[in-house]
């Protein structure tokens, strides 16, 4: 027996720094499902290490439950931030929604 695992989408928008830490932490919560997770950062105009920290926690939560996670970005700025932080491989990062969904449809975490 199999069933379609539904996609969990978390969308963050705007300028996110230490002043929005509580809101970002509240938004980055897993649903009760077991499907893959897409974090949509396409409308984030600024992010700092506060956001990276919360995303790392969220990624760890998702992977601990065997759920694949991908980040969708709207500009190269967030990818550069990960490089500057020394974490270029910490997340599966896509600038294209279809490519992210293809990745998430793959097997395994």
């Amino acid at each position: 027996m199999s069933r379609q695992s539904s996609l969990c989408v978390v969308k963050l928008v705007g300028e996110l720094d230490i002043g929005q830490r509580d809101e970002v932490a509240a938004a980055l919560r897993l649903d009760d499902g077991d499907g893959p997770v897409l974090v949509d950062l396409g409308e984030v105009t600024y992010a700092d290490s506060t956001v990276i920290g919360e995303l790392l926690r969220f990624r760890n939560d998702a992977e601990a439950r065997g759920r694949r996670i991908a980040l969708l970005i709207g500009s190269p700025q967030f990818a550069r931030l990960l490089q500057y932080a020394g974490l270029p491989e910490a997340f599966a990062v896509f600038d294209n929604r279809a490519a992210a969904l293809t990745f998430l449809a793959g097997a395994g975490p």
Partner: protein
Amino acid sequence: MIPGAELRLSRPADAGAPRPIRHALGAFLAALDVAPVIRADILVAVGEALANSVEHAYGHEPGAVEIYARVRDERMLLVDVLDGGRFIEREATPGRGLGLRIVHAIASAVQIDTVGGTRVSMAFDTAPRRRSGPRGQSLAT
């Protein structure tokens, strides 16, 4: 860039301080014709120094965080982030402790003085060019 141009700002050191300071610095950099990608990187580095300051400088005591940005010459911009409190690199949760790494990756030079408060002094090269990323990736600017 206009040698001698400078920006000084002071705000109460709370979690809401970094955003308006970044906005003011962003407008200053735009007026100096700093390229958008370099501008964004400088705002990230300064934003990390500001975040570190407002999180740890004073504990629960009120205080101020200040920024002093000035153009040294045609291509170098100097930015100091100052407070009267203690310096602690954030490491409490996963991902913390990344702030200074980001600052060092973006700035050409960084100096941290902790006598009588904390001053994080950063120098930025604003000349558009191709730069090597932290792991050797070529980052188009």
